């Protein structure tokens, strides 16, 4: 009885802590989701699961399907005509729980900043977070599921959503 009594609050604390990890990013996303300066794309797990079931002989599609099959969600918040892209980038940057994510890639090219973080458990990457900020552009992309970094660049061909092309940088960097 005593054991159960102690286990319950511990379990509840863990349960509360898990969603809190991603809360800051989600809050940031929700803060701008209705802002008309941004384009918002949200793809549900069901969409990924449905797409992963469609098989064809097309090689590109099969590569895309292979990546998509293990994904559970995609959120993109993007704008290419704002005046405070860098400020937004810094704001988002400050909200990334650095203890939970490990930095995968940082690129600064002129005034453009690109950062990619991953959240992993052992060899499995659970989440990929991409931030792009330049004076007139901002991209926040969050991808969840089982992510294979070698194959992730295949997403760019299949999804064709603004901001996703930044994932190509992972491939370039690895090479």
């Amino acid at each position: 009885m005593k054991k159960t009594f102690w286990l319950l609050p511990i379990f509840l604390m863990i349960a509360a802590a898990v969603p809190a990890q991603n809360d800051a990013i989600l809050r940031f996303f929700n803060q701008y989701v209705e802002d008309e300066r941004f384009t918002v794309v949200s793809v549900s797990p069901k969409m990924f699961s449905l797409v992963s079931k469609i098989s064809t002989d097309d090689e590109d599609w099969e590569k895309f399907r292979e990546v998509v099959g293990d994904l559970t969600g995609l959120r993109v918040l993007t704008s290419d005509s704002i005046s405070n892209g860098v400020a937004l980038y810094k704001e988002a940057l400050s909200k990334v729980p650095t203890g939970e994510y490990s930095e995968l890639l940082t690129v600064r090219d002129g005034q453009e900043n690109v950062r990619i973080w991953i959240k992993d458990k052992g060899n499995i990457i659970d989440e990929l977070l991409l931030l792009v900020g330049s004076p007139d552009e901002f991209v926040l992309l969050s991808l969840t599921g089982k992510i294979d970094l070698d194959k992730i660049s295949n997403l760019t061909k299949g999804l064709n959503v603004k901001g996703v092309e930044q994932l190509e940088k992972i491939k370039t960097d690895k090479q």
Partner: protein
Amino acid sequence: MKQYLFCLILCLSGINLFAQDRGLYWKYKDYDGAIALTVPRWIIHTGSWFADEKAQRKLIRKVRKVRVLVFEDQDSPVTKRDVEKFSKKARKRHLESMLTVREDQTRVEVWAKERRNKLRKVVILVREPETFALVSFRTKMNIDEIGQLLKDLPKEFKGKSDKPLLPDNVRSVIRI
């Protein structure tokens, strides 16, 4: 006994029919400026004869019923609350949100219902300040068949252009 059973089935099917889709379409179909149409299966089938490609014909024939509700160039009477109600109702009816895109004041939502590896229903909602469109179609398309159709469709239908597919293309497809 048989008659009772028959009556019971008839009553139940009547209730089922009544409960099918008392949503946005039925609420607004008679409003001023509404373009509302229901295309039955036989018309869709007939229409498929005019498709050039065999794959297109096949694809069209998989659609069982189409409902369209459009308000164009006027303030749409469909409120945010209506859409929220629709979302609630859709979830109850096992429709799942597939994709949401918002660009400027344009919002596109795609809902779908899949059961036993078959796509049963797809609902597309497009909202703009002066436009509202709802396209809903019932199908019994097998997921494997979709793959086959993708294979058969000519290249220009496979979205291999360099232009981003979302959200501009979604909008234009729905406007057609």
